């Protein structure tokens, strides 16, 4: 039996064969390839999303080794987007990858994601998150957002006409660039848990299945094992 005929055997019957086939037809963009984006990209590739656009202008540094799955010692100083492309091709060569080693701004991001069905926010700047939401609205695609600080994380889903980040962070005019993560750092297992929750929301949105975190915020805190879904409106 070939790899490709066996590849998705363990996805069934959690997914139907028809849903598995549908996943291969979708194009998903991941913006930010650090602690969240590395995990999200790999999980989306493993479940069989057809095309991944992987965007990050950064290179690895040694402080990424504590949590970023794509970061290995030999890759310090090299492109995160390049590492993501190699990793995804090694995991699932049936996934088409567009790797973009470039920081996105409001002018360039539209072209990067305009053909996508969904975009995943794995960024580390609150200001850039608002920019991404505006571009996702322009492209008219949903956005799956995750954010972390220490062992605290949050996940939400924003559709094009939703208020989205304003409900979470307030008006963008009164924002700090970063949240409490500038004090707490980010811990590996928290990053990967939030990445897993984001991957799950991606699949649910794409397949229109399950309870989606639209206008809701899942908050988790791992010292106290707190997991709560809050209503934002």
């Amino acid at each position, binding site marked *: 039996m070939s790899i490709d005929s066996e590849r998705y055997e363990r996805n069934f019957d959690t997914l139907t064969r028809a849903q598995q086939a549908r996943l291969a037809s979708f194009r998903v963009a991941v913006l930010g390839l650090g*602690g969240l984006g590395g995990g999200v990209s790999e999980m989306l590739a493993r479940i069989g999303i057809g095309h991944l656009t992987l965007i990050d202008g950064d290179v690895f540094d040694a402080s990424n080794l504590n949590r970023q799955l794509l970061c290995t010692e030999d890759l310090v100083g090299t492109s995160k987007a390049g590492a993501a492309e190699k990793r995804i091709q090694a995991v699932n060569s049936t996934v088409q990858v567009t790797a973009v080693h470039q920081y996105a701004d409001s002018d360039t991001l539209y072209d990067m994601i305009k053909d996508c069905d969904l975009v995943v926010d794995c960024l580390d700047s609150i200001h850039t998150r608002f920019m991404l939401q505006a571009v996702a609205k322009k492209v008219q695609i949903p956005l799956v957002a995750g954010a972390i600080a220490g062992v605290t994380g949050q996940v939400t889903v924003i559709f094009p006409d939703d208020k989205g980040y304003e409900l979470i962070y307030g008006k963008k005019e009164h924002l700090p660039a970063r949240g409490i993560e500038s004090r707490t750092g980010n811990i590996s297992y928290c990053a990967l848990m939030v990445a897993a929750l984001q991957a799950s929301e991606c699949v649910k949105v794409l397949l229109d299945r399950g309870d989606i975190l639209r206008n809701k915020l899942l908050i988790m*805190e791992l010292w106290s094992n707190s997991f709560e879904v809050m209503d934002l409106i």
Partner: protein
Amino acid sequence: MAKIQITLKLFATLVPYLPENADHFQIEQGTTVQEIIRSLQLPPDAVKLIFVNGRKQESTHELEPGDRLGLFPPVGGG
């Protein structure tokens, strides 16, 4: 003024400000979230999200007996 009890939950960097009796936190009827934030001496701008009984509320919200109040700081890392 009558005293009521609420459950208070603080997340992440706010945890050090949690009072000992957070599960049975006693306040006066009609106390607002903002007044609780002030009484706990939380740093300015430390609270980004306020949830009462699992629903987002404003700082002017008045608490009722048995309410579950959650205060959450801004989280933006990736």
